[in-house]
């Protein structure tokens, strides 16, 4: 018997903050194990967005009236909260975007397009999400640069054996996932930062999973850019952030033009506003940014050390319980301290979509598919995996429900 060591976080109280966790799916209490896809939202986030629309809605950085000033203060206040959450030195290191994907694209088109040429190289790993692959493929088309990859080893860690050979003057950008959305693997950011420095390349970290699931000090990480999104950390969809070093932001061109991002506009030429506004063309997602601010407040109140500790506990429990199910194969590091809370698996010849349907009937939401990581699926030699992923509100009871439903899947497929 495994003792679930989860008393540190007052889970029963915390779950009450999430209205959707009180609902049912297919007549069963909802067991939401898809936080790596998107997280559920606590009332504190919903209330902050609602209050913004009820009390303070106006366009930001424009009107001279008091309401517009209030809207601007809430929007910029949210930027300050996100900046403090990642330990940025200043709010201007945070550019609000539409999410992780648009943050990475902003660097690809704002920096990559203007600094890469024929024969230059971009180094990625084979565990990257499509969001950290496809933008670079597009940039290669525009510039004649080429992509090179670090593989994954048998323990599902990034294989650094061939790194030295790939680090030379042709290398201009390294893109690395801080935490894999499929394997849970924590990316070797520090090693890659050091490698990049030796040849003056830049490092962009896909922080979509890393920032929500572990305490971060982005300036100390050593990377040049870190992309992350609100909706994977209790915030709303439609808003994310790009953290960047001030000197890198200065080297970056705006990928989008429009209102808000200008200093002066003539008929043929314009000049740009200062960072971060230079990269925020058009009316931003104001209420969503406010919700993002409330989400990081919520996480800070729990404490990110506690978030991480809970995640290690629940992942550790899940890995042990899943190991009891015959013919179940987990794809990812076995050490809970070396990984995040996304656990991918397959069960005998039961296709992941069939598993997802069976679990759905039990009220359990998991992801089945390629997880926007088709190159990784080819490396793992599977068309798809099932994935259970955890967050602050996940309980051992929910893991137990998952394991029971997997036994039911075995029965339905004649494996019992």
């Amino acid at each position, binding site marked *: 018997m495994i003792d679930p060591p989860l008393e540190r976080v007052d889970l029963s109280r915390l779950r009450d903050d999430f209205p959707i966790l009180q609902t049912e799916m297919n007549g069963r209490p909802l067991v939401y194990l898809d936080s790596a896809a998107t997280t559920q939202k606590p009332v504190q986030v919903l209330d902050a967005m609602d209050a913004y629309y009820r009390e303070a809605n106006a366009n930001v950085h424009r009107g001279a009236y008091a309401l517009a000033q209030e809207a601007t203060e809430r929007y910029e206040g949210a930027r300050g909260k996100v900046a403090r959450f990642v330990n940025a030195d200043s709010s201007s290191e945070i550019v609000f975007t539409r999410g992780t994907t648009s943050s990475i694209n902003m660097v690809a088109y704002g920096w990559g397009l203007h600094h890469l040429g024929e024969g230059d190289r971009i180094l990625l790993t084979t565990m990257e999400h499509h969001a950290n692959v496809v933008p670079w493929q597009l940039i290669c088309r525009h510039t004649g640069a080429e992509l090179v990859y670090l593989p994954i080893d048998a323990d599902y860690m990034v294989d650094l054996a061939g790194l030295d050979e790939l680090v030379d003057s042709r290398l201009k950008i390294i893109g690395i996932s801080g935490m894999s959305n499929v394997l849970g693997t924590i990316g070797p950011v520090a090693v890659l930062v050091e490698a990049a420095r030796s040849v003056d390349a830049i490092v962009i970290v896909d922080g979509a999973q890393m920032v929500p699931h572990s305490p971060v000090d982005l300036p100390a990480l050593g990377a040049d850019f870190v992309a992350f999104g609100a909706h994977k950390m209790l915030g709303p969809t439609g808003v994310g952030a790009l953290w960047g070093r001030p000197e890198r932001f200065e080297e970056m061109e705006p990928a989008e033009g429009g209102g808000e991002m200008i200093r002066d506009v003539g008929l043929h030429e314009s000049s740009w506003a200062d960072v971060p506004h230079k990269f925020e063309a058009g009316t931003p997602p104001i209420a969503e940014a406010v919700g993002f601010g409330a989400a990081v407040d919520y996480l800070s109140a729990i404490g990110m050390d506690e978030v991480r500790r809970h995640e290690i506990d629940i992942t550790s429990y899940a890995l042990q319980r899943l190991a009891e199910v015959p013919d179940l194969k987990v794809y990812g590091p076995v050490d809970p301290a070396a990984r995040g809370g996304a656990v991918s698996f397959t069960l005998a010849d039961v296709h992941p*979509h*069939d598993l997802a349907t069976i679990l759905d009937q039990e009220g359990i939401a998991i992801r089945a*598919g390629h997880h926007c990581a088709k190159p990784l699926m080819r490396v793992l030699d599977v068309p798809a995996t099932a994935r259970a992923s955890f967050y602050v509100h996940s309980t051992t009871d929910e893991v137990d429900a998952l394991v029971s439903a997997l036994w039911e899947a075995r029965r339905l*497929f004649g494996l019992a």
Partner: protein
Amino acid sequence: MSLDQLYREVILDHYRSPRHSGSLEHPDAHADGHNPLCGDEISLDLTFDGDRVSDIRISGRGCSISQASASMMANAVSGMTLDEVRDLERRFKEMMSIEEGGEEIDVKVMGDLAALQGVRRFPVRIKCADLPWTTLDEALSQRS
């Protein structure tokens, strides 16, 4: 709707031992079907003898519903005239869309395919069962 009615034994049998599996060296028609959302894949080869499907071979990867549907479809359409194929196609699409209390499924006509009627109660899975049929549609359209 219980899962036992979805995952009937005959479906699992077709999933694990697909009929008409493989490809043809000189097909008269070929089509690839792909569901980008879930990754199910079907590759389909056909030969004709006049107006009749003389051979059909299917290869693919995917869930039990898509692969069983493909295997059952291949079994059913092999030897059929094009008109018969069109008729079966129509009946299958109808079976996937019947509301509760609707028209009875003609098991004599549908054969093993009737086992897939449970799929319509799982709306997100209907596209899995449909994939081989839309692929067949595409292959047939090449011919006309």
